[in-house]
């Protein structure tokens, strides 16, 4: 009986040691070749098809979220506007939103004007 027990112990030890001795190969040179290939792809898409899929999924998620917020904001805004009419006072959130959009438009106009006046600066290499 003891010999059987000992042989079981030896077998299990052999199995375990074989599994742990299986070497993991160094695949870094392959990766270096893949990511240094002159294919014009940016690093976030250079790994393969999965990169593109993951990128599109991430973009979809953030865009969906932002659209969801916009939807919430408009419903909140309309509520606030109703409140504004009722109380006759300005809502800071509505004003902030309107100011931001208005100032953005002003900034775009200013940049266009600067491009015309300082054509040489914008066209220099």
């Amino acid at each position, binding site marked *: 009986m003891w010999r059987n027990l000992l042989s079981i112990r030896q077998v299990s030890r052999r199995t375990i040691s074989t599994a742990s001795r299986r070497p*993991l190969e160094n*695949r870094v040179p392959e990766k*270096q070749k893949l990511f240094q290939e002159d294919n014009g792809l940016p690093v976030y898409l250079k790994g393969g098809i999965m990169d593109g899929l993951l*990128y599109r*999924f991430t973009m979809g998620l953030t865009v969906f979220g932002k659209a*969801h917020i916009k939807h919430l904001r408009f419903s909140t805004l309309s509520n606030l506007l109703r409140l504004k009419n009722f109380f006759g006072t300005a809502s800071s959130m509505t004003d902030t939103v309107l100011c931001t959009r208005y100032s953005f438009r002003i900034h775009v106009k200013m940049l266009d004007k600067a491009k015309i006046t300082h054509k040489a600066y914008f066209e220099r290499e």
Partner: protein
Amino acid sequence: MAHQAHSYHMVDPSPWPIFGAAAALLTTSGLIMWFHYNTSTLLMAGLLSMLLVMLQWWRDVIRESTFQGHHTPTVQKGLRYGMILFITSEVFFFLGFFWAFFHSSLAPTPELGGQWPPTGINPLNPLDVPLLNTAILLASGVTVTWAHHSITEGNRKQAIHALTLTIALGLYFTALQAMEYHETSFSIADSIYGSTFFVATGFHGLHVIIGSSFLTVCLLRLIKFHFTSNHHFGFEAAAWYWHFVDIVWLFLYMSMYWWGS
């Protein structure tokens, strides 16, 4: 093809910064929707997009460094400054919570019974699990240093063992702390004692989880031969972060667990 005449890294255009900002917006708005309107869709979208951005951004940094060779000594120097500055900002973050603790505990108000711990609060015994947790984190500081020495000496097997042990100790700490949270007779709502205790130790626990995750990524990279004996900054950054987490715990233990009991 033109080559750069400097040793800095001009990165490829990347979508992760703007997506990260969008993810932060989704997460913060999601928190508001969860708090006030009892709906967690936006929050889940925010957290998931944050996770995706982090994974892909840091995956790209690994590609740029290990696979494309862009991390010259100059670039590494910048990364070192960056990590040190980040950890310094985290120190200030915790400083605020320690300030709050000492503000309330050095001059306890009449509402608290004029004493610290306040009347009715049974604090945890500092010589029980908290002391064990201290020993665990100190030991993990030793094992992470052992891992570092093994890497610089080119001893792959020992490095993997030491780093695995470090992560195991971190997980053990987290498990014990979660158990302790369950066992306390007081909650976060129990006066300023509960607030300061759980916010400070809670944020510390979050940093232990972050640090353990960082070390786990390093372990995977170590196994995949990403590190060389003289270029392994990702590991060094993780080790610095881990030491910071350890030191914060020591201050927490001495002030809140020991002096504050």
